[in-house]
């Protein structure tokens, strides 16, 4: 290898890295909650028979699944402020872009999970007098959630990886800090390798957990 | 003339010894029916003979050639190329047919000829048509397995095995997965092959068929051969109690 590896300068910037990590985790938490939460609402709307719910939900899902997240983030950061009387921060823009995208994907996961619960469960719930909402909340969703867990954890992993896109609007997260360290110390190899390793270390347990869930699910079926 | 000889065959799966020392000699022209309860090891025995399963211990000789080589620690090891060679001379028909779904009936029969024997397409097709005609399915040559009945699928599987000119045919419960009214057409094909003098080993539950077609019946129990003799003996006058019990349980509802 031609270059001489210098990880010392990377470690010297631990503060910067920690700030980045905090930013990444904050963004992840926001998008996870918003994305999976909104996704549930949209997913239920997609499952509804009511036109007024189904159509807008479908448009939402189709649009946000078929547009790149980076485009959405830039739109929210540069385009939206024009329509609104206030600024959109990098965090807000990234959160909006990633959350809406995740909501669209998780909506389909929820819908698929709910649909996979057979009719008999609905009949059983209605037969004892439950309304739609109660049946959904107490009978259907709890069963569906178990099946959806692997796909939802996959979504969470994707959200975590997407947090790096926020660096495009200079939000302080891990990759952004990596760029900073690289430009200040002229050591892109060490800097970006370190960032890659950090992400790998953070995500690997989650990925293994997903495999475990998938295996458990296959066994139980 | 001995085609196949197995000596001291042992097969272990994990902690279970499924075959506990099998000695078997197969002469040319013999038709051997292998009977036994489930778990007795009969399928495993068959699958060891064409090395679908590798024996844990013991020797197998095909046409006087001992297969595999012995390692320093006494373990027997087999080279894949040698095993492929064996499988080109020993044919197997499976309980679940295992036809290739993405090829037509004739495609299935031709596959071995084209890919293994490297025959030209015309040659392979001509031979395949002959084999399909032999099993009575000449008109179904271009049909896909999904459009064939169970009995037809199994007959194509037999044609596929025959196309390779096997010295020995192994049938692993060929009719067990068939609806009862389709069993006859397959048994008829097998009987025709028997009348031609083909050497075959047949694991089956069809005792009547075994009686009429086999030259020798073997009863397997607990991984060893309990009885071995002509059908008249083993099926009508078995010596062992367990054989008697097995036959009785099969006759419970016969009329």
């Amino acid at each position, binding site marked *: 290898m031609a270059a001489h590896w210098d990880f010392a300068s990377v470690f010297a910037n631990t503060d910067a890295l920690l700030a980045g990590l905090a930013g990444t985790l904050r963004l992840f938490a926001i998008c996870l909650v918003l994305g999976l939460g909104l996704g549930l609402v949209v997913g239920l709307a997609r499952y509804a028979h009511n036109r007024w719910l189904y159509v807008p939900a479908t448009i939402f899902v189709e649009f946000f699944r*078929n547009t790149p997240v*980076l485009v959405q983030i830039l739109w929210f950061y540069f385009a939206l402020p024009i329509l609104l009387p206030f600024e959109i921060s990098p965090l807000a823009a990234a959160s909006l872009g990633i959350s809406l995208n995740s909501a669209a994907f998780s909506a389909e996961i929820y819908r698929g999970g709910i649909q996979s619960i057979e009719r008999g469960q609905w009949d059983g719930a209605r037969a004892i007098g439950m309304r739609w909402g109660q049946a959904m909340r107490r009978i259907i969703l709890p069963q569906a959630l178990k099946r959806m867990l692997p796909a939802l954890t996959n979504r969470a992993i994707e959200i975590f990886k997407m947090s790096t896109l926020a660096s495009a609007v200079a939000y302080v997260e891990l990759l952004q800090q990596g760029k900073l360290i690289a430009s200040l110390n002229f050591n892109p*190899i060490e800097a970006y390798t370190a960032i890659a390793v950090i992400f790998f270390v953070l995500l690997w347990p989650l990925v293994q957990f997903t495999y475990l869930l998938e295996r458990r699910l296959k066994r139980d079926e | 003339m001995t085609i196949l000889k197995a000596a001291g065959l042992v097969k272990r799966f994990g902690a279970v010894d499924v075959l506990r020392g099998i000695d078997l000699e197969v002469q040319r022209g013999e038709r051997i029916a292998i009977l036994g309860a489930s778990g007795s090891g009969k399928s495993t025995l068959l699958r060891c003979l064409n090395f679908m399963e590798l024996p844990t211990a013991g020797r197998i000789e095909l046409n006087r050639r001992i297969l595999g080589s012995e390692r320093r620690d006494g373990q027997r090891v087999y080279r894949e190329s040698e095993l492929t060679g064996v*499988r080109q001379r020993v044919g197997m028909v499976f309980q679940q047919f*295992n036809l290739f779904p*993405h090829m037509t009936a004739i495609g299935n029969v031709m*596959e071995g000829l084209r890919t293994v024997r490297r025959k030209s397409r015309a040659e392979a097709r001509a031979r395949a048509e002959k084999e399909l005609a032999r099993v009575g399915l000449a008109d179904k040559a271009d049909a896909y397995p999904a459009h064939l009945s169970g009995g037809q699928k199994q007959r194509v599987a037999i044609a596929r095995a025959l*196309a390779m000119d096997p010295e020995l045919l192994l049938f692993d419960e060929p009719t067990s997965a068939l609806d009862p009214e389709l069993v006859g057409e397959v048994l008829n094909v097998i009987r025709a092959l028997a009348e031609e003098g083909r050497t075959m080993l047949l694991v089956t539950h069809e005792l009547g068929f075994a009686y009429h077609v086999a030259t020798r019946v073997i009863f397997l129990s607990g991984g060893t051969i309990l009885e071995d003799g002509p059908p008249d003996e083993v099926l009508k006058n078995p010596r062992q109690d367990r054989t008697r019990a097995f036959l009785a349980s099969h006759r419970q509802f016969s009329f």
Partner: protein
Amino acid sequence: MYRWDFAPVLANASLLAEGLLNTLKVTGVALACGLVLGLALALFRLSPRRWLSWPAGLVIEVFRTTPPLVQLFWFFFALPLIAGIEMTPFLAACVTFSIQSAAFFAEVFRAGIVSVERGQWEAALAIGLTRRQTLGRIVLPQAVKRMIPAFLERAIELMKTTTLVATIAYADLLFEASDIAQKTFRPLETFTVAALIYFAVIYVFSLLGRGLERRLAVSGESTVH
């Protein structure tokens, strides 16, 4: 009320078209290389030889567990220094996304191959086919049909992921849009148009994919007994 004015955007339509073309170029290259590399990785991963399955597994895990943007930056900024080579944005993008999609395709291939039941392997071996012949003539043809929906999904994902090249100044559609937005002071109209173009292209492919999926499900001659 804000006054929408799309004229400046449309005036730069040719730049946008060029950008779109570049997007499709990168996607195309990455898709083709990714499929080939993905198959190789899958076969290595399934190989009983440790020295093949281990590195393959490592590549797959690393490229699936790290963010694509980090990979892109690494290949664009770090690799040239290590290997002493010139790296253009296009090259970096092609390399990154080829390997990245290969890692995902490898898993799809592997799942597909494994899903073909043992009976098929046994029947092929029983007529004397070697393992390689069995894989090529019997197992893969059946596996590929089942994998097509997953492949299409991955391909569409790839189309979206390649927008990341805009961050390393490759002139794809997004990069051109940002450029035009700055020049014309019309970010709202520009980015909206860009988003709509992306949507149109990707949605069409997505529909084609679904149509193909349905056609395959109907023809079902490959249903195994």
